């Protein structure tokens, strides 16, 4: 019963939280750039508008693949917040990402094609950290189940500092923020037009945006887990980490994919890998 309640709560609350987070993000970003910025609920209005648009597209496949992208992002969240196996949630997340990449490829747009290639590079830059995070939680709490980790009374971050730092670094890829907004960005004025999303419009684009809201909440949930024993500290950590991401977004320029990939892999190997190998020897 509890699980079903959590699931329903996630389905409804995640987009709400996601909208508030991105809405505040846009205001603070605007202030950093000396603008006033949109109202907090602007992301909601944007998405709502997208669903009212006419359904157009290059052919049938992309819309279906994007729907699967959204569906499995939701499944990921349900597994994660429902207390399921962390690794299973990670695999569902990868599946969802792959559907997005396939949708981009299937449009056969040159911009989306380049974007899809870069999205895959981002995926492989991020994947090792996420797997190491799950294993790190297992080593600290003795379980892969999110429910067991959530009832852990200590602060996992104390034993997993290297993994936590790697996770914060790769979060920039996942939130599509500069300097790692390679495959698509919130700003459509780059050489790639809108990258993976170039050919998505109307409700298809709306589903992509919705999936991104769910993803943001899931990722912030993982950040919270590092401080699970102390909810106040956990929420504070999530806020601070997100503020850092915004700061990075507004103060750095985009890097090329090769240094991004190399950097992510090196940090993961040294900090993340070093962390769990050292932990296993303790």
């Amino acid at each position, binding site marked *: 019963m509890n699980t079903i309640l959590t699931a329903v709560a996630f389905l409804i609350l995640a987009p709400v939280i996601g909208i508030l987070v991105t809405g505040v993000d846009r205001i603070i970003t605007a202030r950093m750039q000396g603008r006033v910025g949109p109202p907090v609920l602007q992301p909601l209005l944007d998405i709502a508008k997208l669903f009212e648009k006419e359904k*157009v*597209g290059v052919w*049938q496949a992309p*819309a279906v693949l994007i729907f*699967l992208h959204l569906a499995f992002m939701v499944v990921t969240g349900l597994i994660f917040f429902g207390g399921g196996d962390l690794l299973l949630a990670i695999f569902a997340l990868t599946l969802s990402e792959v559907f997005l*990449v396939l949708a981009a490829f299937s449009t056969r747009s040159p911009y989306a094609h380049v974007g899809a290639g870069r999205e*895959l590079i981002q995926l492989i830059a991020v994947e*090792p950290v996420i*797997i190491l995070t799950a294993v790190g939680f297992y080593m600290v709490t003795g379980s892969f189940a999110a429910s067991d980790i959530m009832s852990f009374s200590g602060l996992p971050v104390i034993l997993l500092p290297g993994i936590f730092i790697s996770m914060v670094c790769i979060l920039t890829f996942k939130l599509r923020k500069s300097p790692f907004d390679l495959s698509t960005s919130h700003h459509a004025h780059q050489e790639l037009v809108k990258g993976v999303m170039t050919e998505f419009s109307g409700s298809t684009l709306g589903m992509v945006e919705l999936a991104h809201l769910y993803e943001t909440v899931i990722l912030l949930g993982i950040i919270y887990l590092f401080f699970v024993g102390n909810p106040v500290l956990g929420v504070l950590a999530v806020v601070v980490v997100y503020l850092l991401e915004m700061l990075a977004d507004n103060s750095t320029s985009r890097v090329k994919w090769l240094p991004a990939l190399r950097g992510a892999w090196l940090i993961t190997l040294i900090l993340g*890998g070093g962390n769990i190998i050292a932990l296993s020897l303790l």
Partner: protein
Amino acid sequence: MIDANLITVMYVELYVELLLFLILFPLIPALILTVLRNENLRGVVVTAGAGICALGSILLLAFSVGQNQLFFTVPAPGIALVMLILEILIAGYLVMVSVKAKQFLVTGFVLLQLLLIGGAEYLGLEGHATVPDLLTDEFSAIMAVIIGVIGGLICIYALGYMREYQEHHKDLPDNRPRFFAILFLFLSAMFGVVFSNNLIWMYFFWEITTLCSYLLIRYPETGEAVNNAFRALLYNLIGGACFPIAILFILMNGGSEQLGIGSLIAAGPAIALVPASLIAIAGCAKSAQLPFSSWLVGAMVAPTPVSALLHSSTMVKAGVYAIARFAPVFDGQVLGMVIALIGGVTFLVTSCIAISQSNAKKVLAYSTIANLGLIVACAGVGTPEALWAAIFLIIFHAISKSLLFLSVGTVEHRIGSRDIEDMTGLAAPMPKVGLMMLIGIAGMFLAPFGMLISKWASIHAFSQALPPFGMILIVILAYGSAVTVFFWAKWMGKLLEVRKWEESIEFQISKAEWAALIPLTALTIIACFGIAPISTYLIEPFLVTTYGPISELIPASNLMIMVLMLALIVVLPVLMMKILIPRRSLRRYMGGVTVKDGLMEGSIGMKREISLSNLYLEDLFPEAGLSKYGSLITIVLFCVLVAGLIGGVL
């Protein structure tokens, strides 16, 4: 009570007869096919032979449910002598061809092995009868089904493929009678490997698989094919030499009663570790682990059904089967961890190499080596959970990889290329085969398909393995699985990059090819739905027999979630299709200079069609450099292994 006993006796007799039938029966079609030149009759014999092998193996699997491990002695006293004579004949043949081709290194290793096995037989002939010759349990039965069903389907597929192959290659001699005969001999030898309890028997069948793969690789008889065939032979002989050494070691230390797999494992690591590690080295060569891996990549020159057979149901699977058999011996041992690391390094390095390849068969070859590496890593770790993962990897890899090879073969004959770049938008002209390929690829790396559950279990298993090796393996797996996503997903994307709908060209595909492709696609999906029953009724009982009581592996609730996810992938597109599909179709955005869909106009009026190419990142993942360093690392690991063995003996 008496009745019950009688039934048991009859049951056991039926069992041993079935095992012998599966080993010996394929020789009948093999013999008939050697002399048969009529193509229609060949079709009948191959289909019937493959069908009977498949049915026999399924029957065996049904028998094995609820049955413990059984050992049998074959009541034929002269059989050891017959095997020795056959071994000498095979060695004689190999000496002859290798001297003729001036491959003297091969000659040397053939003679060395003959000397070693001759010595072993000389020492062991008296004690022979004390060891049961055959064994069967759930693991053997699973292997038998892989050999019988998937191997059988590949034989049927070969009927259609080889006809086209000979039409495409008019300059090559038509040796199809011999080709099909060798396929069946191969199946027979593989049944022999997985049913052998006596290591001398296993070695005999082991060598026949080496011989068969050599003959099949050199089928095109071009200079490259002959060279690659000799390379395969050489590498397998180098590794294979460790097998008779293991037998000699057992005879000199433990005595001939330990010559059976069952009794050797029961004797515990103190006695079994050295011979098991030696056999693992032979297994690494056979399953193309670094630094031996180049023989399997070279084997691509052979016709596609041969690649499919070598990669999925035979040859390389014999290698990992042998290592996985001895997994309990490696549990918690440092030497086991060294073997696991060899597999882990192979997994990571060859996955990286696969990124830089655009030749579809090469991508498949490197991914096979990578997956075998993961199986070796699991077997080397040797805990119940790791072995669970290894067996599932063997099952799912066999199904998906055979499907992929066969669909690539079919596509190759239609579009005249095996390059992934030439498969752009293949979903339009070949929708069914394109979908099959997509399912096969998904089966290789995506949740909730089969291979992924094994990766999941491997991570669980490595987390509990001997520190710090377990964590090193986790780091390797984390990077390797990321890289795997990259090269598979970009291939899938290529298939979906459809420009416009074209007329299907699938009507050209022969019935024999469909007859293999459709069941394999179905198997890929059915096996995913069947994970829970396969685990409960086959693999867990096997693990309990091997290890004693085991703790819960992957919880059933998680398996249910996987099945639900699979159902979602199948059902959602169908349900949502009507709502989702665009009402109006638009041109692509091309920066304002589009003339027609996909056509761009340049500044001086020159029209250019867009062409999109995938990323291969050759600078980051160079094939030559990675092979070199990967080989170097694994050679060092093998040296550590051998040093450990010598240290352990002394």
